[in-house]
């Protein structure tokens, strides 16, 4: 029983993490973080310890995983299938049609290819 958060070091990634933590506490499931950012922008160690402690008091564990696949969307889905997670949490932001057409969108790929429920959150809520 796990909630997977697709984390990236941007506003929408932070939002996904916050929502992921809430969901994990609510469902009383473990939390699994997969970094989808470019390069090695992992979470700040101090922040991670804090997060781990927070989950630990609730009797849950925090896991961080990465995949051999270089495409972040594929990596998230592979780990989700492998770990049989209950839910993937992704943060999304507005992308224009042309932008998606030319550059593609990782979130869109996760939404379309995932074999489990996906919770999508936006950073710029009303």
């Amino acid at each position: 029983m796990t909630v997977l958060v697709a984390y990236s070091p941007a506003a929408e990634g932070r939002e996904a993490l916050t929502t992921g933590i809430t969901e994990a506490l609510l469902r009383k499931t473990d939390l699994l973080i997969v970094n989808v950012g470019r390069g090695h922008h992992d979470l700040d160690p101090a922040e991670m310890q804090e997060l781990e402690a927070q989950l630990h008091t609730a009797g849950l564990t925090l896991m961080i995983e990465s995949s051999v696949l270089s495409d972040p969307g594929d990596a998230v889905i592979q780990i989700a299938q492998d770990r049989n997670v209950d839910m993937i949490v992704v943060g999304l932001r507005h992308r224009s049609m042309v932008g998606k057409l030319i550059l593609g969108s990782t979130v869109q790929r996760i939404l379309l290819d995932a074999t489990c429920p996906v919770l999508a959150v936006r950073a710029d809520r009303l």
Partner: protein
Amino acid sequence: MLDSAMAALASLADPSLLLMLLIGTVAGLVMGLIPGLGGTGAVAILLPITFGMEPPQALALLIGALAVVHTSDTVSAVLLGAPGSASASVTMLDGYSMAKKGQAARALTLAFLSSMAGGIIGAIGLTLAIPLARPLVLSFASPELFMLTVLGVALAAVLSRGNIIKGVSAGLLGLVLGMVGTSPTTAEERFTFGSLFLGDGLSLVAVALGIFGLAEIASRASQRRGQKENISLGGGWGRGIREWLSHWTQVIRGALIGIWAGVLPGVGATAGTWLAYGQAVATAKDKRQFGKGDPRGIVGPESANNSVEAGDLIPTLLFGIPGGVPSAMLLGMLLTYGIQPGPSIITEHLDLMYLIVWSFAIASILGALFCFLSVKQLAKLTKVPFAVLAAGLVAIMLLGSFQEGGQLGDLWVMIILGVFGWLLKSTGFPRAPFLIGFVLAIPLERYYFLTDSLYNGLDWMARPGVLVFLAILILPIVWAFIKFLRARRHSNVDDGHRDERPEDDESQLKNSTWSLTAAGIFAAAFSAALISSASFSPEARLVPQLVSIGGLIFSGILLFTEIRTWLRTRTARVGWTLDAGFALKTFVWMTGFLALTAAFGYLVAVTIFIPAFLLVVARARLKTTVVYTLVLYVVLLALPSLLPIDLPQGWLNTLV
């Protein structure tokens, strides 16, 4: 068209052609096993042998090798987890996982069959490209051909992995190096510093073997330990065949991706296989097994890396712009035979085109067959430590680059470029644009002057073909710029598909004093070229000056960013590393070998260098050393009578 295709097939029944094709295939398979050689090494080593041959025989030999290099490079990737070439590292992901589960035979079956199919589909692609491109190619005049050569260098520079500025600088430096020698327009000597030897220009084999071959040896010679663990092939042959048949769509898809990657200059086998792998993952619904032994992760990429080499040949033969490094050398070879790729090859040498297609397809089948038959022996070969192989490779490469001009100067050039190539490799410069620039320098200049003398002013720029090529030239640059801007603003986290291979671990000396030195060398070379070209006549001056000014701008930017990172990383700077020391020591060994050759002749140098290198550097056993040296000596002694090869004579030989 069909007539020439059938005539080409019939000509392959000629025993001498068939024999060459067979030799090429076997040589290609062996070289595929040696780490770091790949298609580039295979063509560069075999090219000197072909100097005395007729074009069909030479092509059969080279194409035979090129077609199968990527068939055998899988063996060590699957069995040892140590890929024979960069492009086989993709196969390692799933293939080695299968082997660890005792299913190496299953992985190898999938890989060999897919490689064969990839080669055949690539050959079909090449065949179909001929009639499709024919009307287009025949409509080209010198302005279009000029634009194509520019496009060849520019695309190679932009599309190569890594930094674009580094790619463009490397491409421009290649152009400058290619202009050493006699100017094609005014017949005056350029950048020769009065030397008769440089008057002929630098030898292509020496440049290619230096930049790629020696550089690769130097960076790997520190591997003196072979794999100790026992290799078992396990079972699963039948299962492999069944799985391969059920994944036939992946085979075709992989091959098509490979052809496309091959057609684009600078996108080679490595990028092509990662593209194919990404595609296989993206289209699979159940992604759990990828990286843990999914047959789809082997089939697509293996099919792609063989078809890349066929795809490379499409722009090389039809437009005269090489799609990759091996085909750049092939282009150089065709030019020495007086066969001009582009419009003239289609009208005058169509039989050669089809000979290439048939050779490629037949070699692909033969290669897979040989691999199946001899996989146990091949597996043993992969256990030989690289340092032991390096001794023989150095001797063979130096001998090879001697053949083109028969001058020891070529060998010195080769070692100097070897050091430079190693510096480029370890500081993250792409080397493909460098070689492509080197090959295209003279055609570029010649087409430019033809264009300039046939058209008034800039009229030629208005030709529709030229406009299309201009658009193709500018688009990737705009594209790269947008991507760069988005990466800067960190607004690219959601940007789609990333197929490229994960972070490069080859260029360990990036952002160090080393890369600063490399940038400095670039800037210095361009300034020197600019200054010395001032003394040329106006016509001979124009292109070198344009190139060096462009080079100065790019290397200036490079130098600026390097100095900035150099100052910033004052504390944690990468200085003298163990690997760098080892590589430079290997170059000292090579220099010693060459000095011995210059003094006492090649054979004497071999008998001193080989045992010394084996005992000191490779730390091989005495028995191995003696047998190795004896065998090599006998082979080298017999070689001149079997093949048109000359052994370098030393200073002492001239006295006797």
